[in-house]
């Protein structure tokens, strides 16, 4: 198949400006998202996974700015668009779902009114028709009794219901790309499972294209076709989900997989020594070298580049060949 990817991110660099310094947050981030796939972006705090999403959608906070690269959505560079054009894209083509669903809904409006506003603004729907589509959307995300739910305010809904509502809002404009930033992190595990099932079903029934940002490798194992692993603002590894789980090539990915507590045998956990680096003091060259057990002189001096380890599997480590 040779269809062009839906989204192509090229050499994306973002920095945050503070009164005392300019802090690089993203360092030459490059990846594609194909139509109909679920791409996971995995990393710990400060890895740049959320900033990547905010850079792509041009929703960076005031202190942040993209200083280089391209974001091609269906071949159009989003970074070159005006705010007005971008608003249209965000409403109609790209939607986002955030971690804390209740904080992302307007607390002063019944959720049904918020939903109607979206339908009016982006699809020009009014009255009966808007209501009919609202009911369909709620059914799609598994919210029972839509007439009652639509009259509720966000604080009257449980966390799981709020997140379903957020997903309904995100789908309301019929987007071709959904970006979900830690959509299940704030939820209890039984509710998390319901939301994962919902996203699976939406993908099967509607061919949803999804970028899923998470720190939870279990959620990745449940949902993702491909995975990008980020560390301190760089992509350190990228590949099909199975490859990443079965044949990880980057020491950080290996460490993450070994750090997962599991139900079962009672050994001690491997973990990764040291701390997740702070933005203000990102290690030079390979950002992972202070915590890496394969670290050698070259890792301090020269930044590794993403190399292809096998088709579709890229890794950024000087010693990936030695890691099995």
């Amino acid at each position: 198949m040779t269809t062009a990817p839906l989204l192509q991110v090229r050499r994306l660099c973002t920095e945050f400006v503070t009164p005392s310094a300019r802090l690089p947050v993203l360092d030459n981030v490059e990846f594609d998202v194909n139509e109909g796939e679920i791409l996971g972006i995995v990393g710990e705090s400060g890895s740049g996974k959320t900033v990547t999403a905010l850079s792509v959608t041009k929703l960076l906070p005031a202190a942040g700015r993209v200083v280089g690269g391209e974001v091609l959505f269906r071949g159009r560079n989003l970074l070159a668009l005006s705010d007005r054009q971008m608003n249209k894209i965000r409403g109609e083509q790209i939607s986002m779902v955030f971690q804390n669903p209740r904080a992302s809904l307007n607390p002063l409006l019944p959720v049904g009114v918020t939903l109607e506003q979206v339908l009016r603004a982006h699809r020009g729907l009014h009255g009966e028709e808007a209501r009919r589509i609202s009911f369909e959307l709620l059914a799609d995300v598994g919210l029972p009794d839509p007439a009652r739910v639509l009259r509720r305010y966000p604080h009257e809904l449980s966390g799981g219901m709020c997140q379903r509502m957020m997903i309904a809002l995100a789908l309301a404009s019929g987007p071709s790309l959904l970006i979900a930033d830690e959509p299940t992190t704030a939820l209890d595990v039984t509710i998390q499972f319901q939301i994962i099932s919902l996203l699976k079903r939406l993908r099967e029934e509607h061919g949803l294209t999804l970028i899923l940002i998470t720190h939870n490798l279990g959620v990745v194992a449940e949902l993702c076709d491909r995975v990008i692993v980020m560390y301190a603002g760089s992509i350190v590894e990228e590949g099909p989900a199975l490859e990443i789980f079965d044949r990880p090539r980057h020491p950080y990915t290996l460490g993450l997989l070994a750090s997962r507590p599991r139900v079962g045998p009672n050994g001690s956990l491997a973990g990764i020594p040291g701390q997740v680096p702070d933005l203000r003091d990102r290690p030079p060259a390979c950002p992972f070298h202070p915590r890496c057990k394969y670290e050698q002189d070259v890792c301090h001096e020269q930044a590794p580049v993403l190399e292809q380890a096998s088709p579709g599997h890229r890794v950024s480590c000087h010693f990936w060949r030695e890691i099995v």
Partner: protein
Amino acid sequence: MTPVLETRGLKKVYPLRSGLFTHANLVAAEDVSISIPRGETLALVGETGSGKSTVGKCVLRLEEPTDGEVLLEGKPITGLKASEMRALRRELQMVYQDPLDSLNPRHRVGELVAEPLWLHGIAPKRGVRSEVERLFGTVGLGPHHVDRLPHQLSGGQQQRVGIARALATSPKLVVLDEPTSALDVSVQAQIINLLRRLQAERELAFLFISHDLAVVSLLAHSVAVMYLGQIVEAGPKSDVLERPFHPYTQALISSAPVEHPTEVKERIAMRGEPTSPVDPPAHCRLVPRCPFAKPICSQVPAELVEVVPGRSTRCVRFQREHRNGEWTPAPERAADVVVDLPELVPAPIVDPQP
């Protein structure tokens, strides 16, 4: 041997006033009886609103229990006056979920660890610094960390400070309230290993409050699962995790994400949304969400039944009078319990659709 901590029928009710004449009671915890021997960890597991943190606070008497008893090494502490309690605080310490929130931002972390030392008169004034450095060493921090402010440390280091502060008084019991859930995975592993080492070295008893069964399986010796204020299942860790009796425990275990993309897991999903803990019914509180619920479940009170020695569950199916007869022979191990009632086979539940 007397357990370090025991609670008997612990209950905490928060009265709510919604109108002039209408009263409602939020039952945060009810009929909670637990016991932790020296050197062991009991994990209280449950989701938001299950009452697990309330139990932790009642144990430390940061909240006054409405009813029931808390015993420290066999001595009741529920009736003690504040002054008597103060002396006992040495034995009872707590580590909180959010390490930054629980450290005073204006104090150097060394001072925060020194505070319990001089409050309880543990170290002579001149010896405090060296004692703090020793404690820092125990939790994997260096002497150069002593003079830092909390925000100058990473999340994992902050949590190490929290642990050092809890250890300063050489307590017998430490209540750990979700101590790793705010941390990154790679750092969480370090803290789990640290807690395991400290427990082995000092024979500490831990009351470990968590929603994460995987972390629980690494730290706990025994597990009590809570749902809406009640213990619904309790027993040795591996027993409960490998052979859960209660539908809620089964759902919790089966809701956890798979570990590998090719793993296929048998799933038992809870229906609907969590129920409110305000004026809960006398019968089983899981009824509205339970995929196995049958009419009897909302007709009789659900009691915690000891199914095999040391292993109890609060599900009508395990109450003898509602089974078809007694267990013969009486099971001695969890593995001998036959859970073969046809209703226990759930309908395959995909994502609930209206």
